[in-house]
């Protein structure tokens, strides 16, 4: 009896009529806890988009419903996702900061007839977890691979890799090692550091002893980056001319002030710098800063969320407000637009964003530290993606 009722309810929901509806978007992210800053950036990106474009699409009104997931917790992520679909009746899911959370929620999408737009989680395999996943952030493979070319172009032959010992760190290491050895370079050593390492001096001694000309490092954005960069300078590696290369997680903008002069000149590759010079970005930064409250807190998840909202708006337009996940996802395959980060498009094959990756150098300009873009790798797909 209950199942008959549910089936009837599902029928009613899926045939909801297309006039002046309220379309709910459920956003799951870390709004409290250690990564609260990144959740705040999700919110800032969403609010910035709403401020610029308004909260109506056609006749429909958008309503955003937030659910807090402070730390990676797949079971809780699945539970929140289910709750959003069943009791809140959301038509779109978005957010997801950590890979395990996105992975746990993905199997629910087809059953719930809901597309998911990933604002951050950066493991290549997520898009394979469900045909209804679209991603507007980046993958660690995507941001790490161009660094191999940078190292090669600068005549560096011997490199040691040092990464945090967890999924994205290992992705980053593999991406870099693959690219760098293919270019003819030599990896003298690959070290994986536990996530909770706080004193990096022994690591620096090891880098010194390895005889490498440069070090490729991956650390997640957050407290550890400060100690790492400081140890790099204080143990004399910077003065000794050992170049530090890293994906941009190491120098996300909110951490730059704390990193200070130690970070000057560091080379990182990433998909977005708050200082990116374009009219689209100027408009984005202005409204996102207003949304987040303080310019120093603005970081890359905001742009993932902002572009994610754009993608969702296109999905709503294409389906006329009806709940039809397959049609919605189909409509944004191949979609291309100018994002605050530069020209981007959704790869129709894996629904991941194709974008420019920039080589940036930490610089001090107009009284603040910025990631200054100095080289562009255009239209980068996700090199880590393998067809399922």
């Amino acid at each position, binding site marked *: 009896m209950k199942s008959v009722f549910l089936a009837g309810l599902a029928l009613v929901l899926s045939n909801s009529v297309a006039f002046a509806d309220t379309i709910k978007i459920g956003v799951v992210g870390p709004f409290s806890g250690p*990564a609260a800053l990144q959740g705040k950036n999700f919110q800032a990106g969403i609010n910035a988009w709403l401020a610029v474009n308004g909260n109506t699409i056609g006749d429909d009104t958008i309503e955003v419903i937030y659910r807090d997931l402070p730390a990676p917790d797949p079971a809780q992520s699945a539970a929140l996702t289910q709750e959003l679909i069943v009791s809140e009746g959301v038509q779109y899911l978005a957010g997801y900061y950590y890979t395990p959370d996105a992975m746990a929620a993905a199997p629910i999408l087809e059953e719930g007839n809901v597309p998911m737009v990933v604002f951050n989680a950066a493991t290549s395999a997520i898009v394979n977890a469900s045909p209804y996943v679209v991603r507007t952030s980046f993958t660690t493979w995507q941001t790490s691979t161009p660094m191999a070319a940078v190292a090669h172009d600068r005549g560096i032959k011997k490199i040691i890799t040092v990464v945090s010992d967890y999924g994205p760190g290992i992705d980053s290491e593999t991406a870099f090692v693959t690219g760098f050895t293919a270019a003819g370079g030599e990896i003298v050593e690959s070290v994986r550091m536990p996530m909770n390492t706080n004193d990096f001096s022994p690591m620096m001694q090891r880098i010194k002893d390895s005889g490498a000309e440069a070090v490729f490092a991956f650390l997640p954005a957050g*407290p550890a980056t400060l100690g790492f960069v400081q140890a790099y300078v204080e143990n004399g590696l910077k003065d000794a001319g050992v170049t530090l290369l890293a994906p941009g997680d190491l120098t996300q903008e909110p951490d730059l002030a704390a990193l200070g002069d130690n970070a000057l000149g560091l080379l990182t590759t990433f998909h977005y710098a708050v200082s990116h010079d374009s009219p689209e970005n100027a408009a984005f930064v202005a409204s996102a800063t207003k949304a987040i409250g303080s310019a120093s807190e603005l970081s890359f998840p905001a742009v993932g969320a902002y572009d994610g909202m754009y993608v969702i708006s296109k999905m709503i337009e294409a389906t006329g407000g009806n709940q039809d996940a397959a049609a919605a996802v189909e409509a944004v395959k191949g979609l291309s637009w100018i994002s605050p980060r530069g020209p981007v498009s959704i790869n129709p094959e894996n629904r991941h964003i194709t974008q420019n990756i920039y080589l940036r150098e930490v610089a001090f300009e107009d009284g603040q530290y910025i990631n200054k873009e100095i080289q562009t790798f255009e239209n980068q797909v996700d090199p880590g993606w393998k067809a399922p």
Partner: protein
Amino acid sequence: MQTVLSIAADSLAYGMVLFIISIGLSVTMGLMKVVNLAHGAFAMIGGYIACYATQQLGLPFGVGIVAAVVGTVLIGIPLERFLYRRIYGAPELTQVLMTIGITFIIIGIANFALGPTLKTIPLPSQLQGPVDLGFRSIAAHKLFAVAVGLVVAAALWFIVERTPFGVRLRASVDDAAMAGALGVRTKMVYAVSFALAIGLAALGGVVGAQLLPIEPYYALHYMVTFLVVVSVGGAGSITGALIAALLLGAVQTTGRYIMPEYGEFFFYLAVIEVVAVFPHGLMGRSK
């Protein structure tokens, strides 16, 4: 050889930072018999005050340290009077529950009021940059931490062992009722020791901030490390805490150099071995 000396220098510096932050907890746990899980939270408050004083108000680093210690003690006194005084002599579970609660409240307030980003305490120019030791260069602030650690150890030993206050403190710890009967104002003694302990926490938070950066979850991140140093050293023993911090610092640093993939494995292996041989810690007194 050069590498060995280099690791020894890093070990000493890391161990001293552990000592400075943990010694206050050793005082609360050993002398006052309170399992204060909020110790790290007080260290964090000290760090935030120093950060505010030096960055926002532009005061010198030294003033920042003093402000951090005094400010944290001022915040701590009402907490002692209204919260901690109720749990002196209470079962350990009660103490743990209340102090972890205080920790979460402080984390929440810090996250809300000061934001989730990490804060730094700018060092004076004398403490910035590397100092050449002959065989390697080491950060000046690490040498500073070593010096502060030695001074703290000596001063505490003097206070506890050689001053009238130390006599009253030890008497109150051994038998509060008898000490009270003999005219020792035990409540006052406890309040002062508590202030001393959180003042040390604040000092440790500031001096150690270069290795353990200040952010809202500081209080939880390093809680286990502080507890481990105290239990390995033996609660209440200054020498014990010093030896434990240096030993664990050395094990941790060497492990990180030789086999970083093993993470905390060697650290906890050392902890298990020490606690198996000395159940009350290296210098702890049996109950």
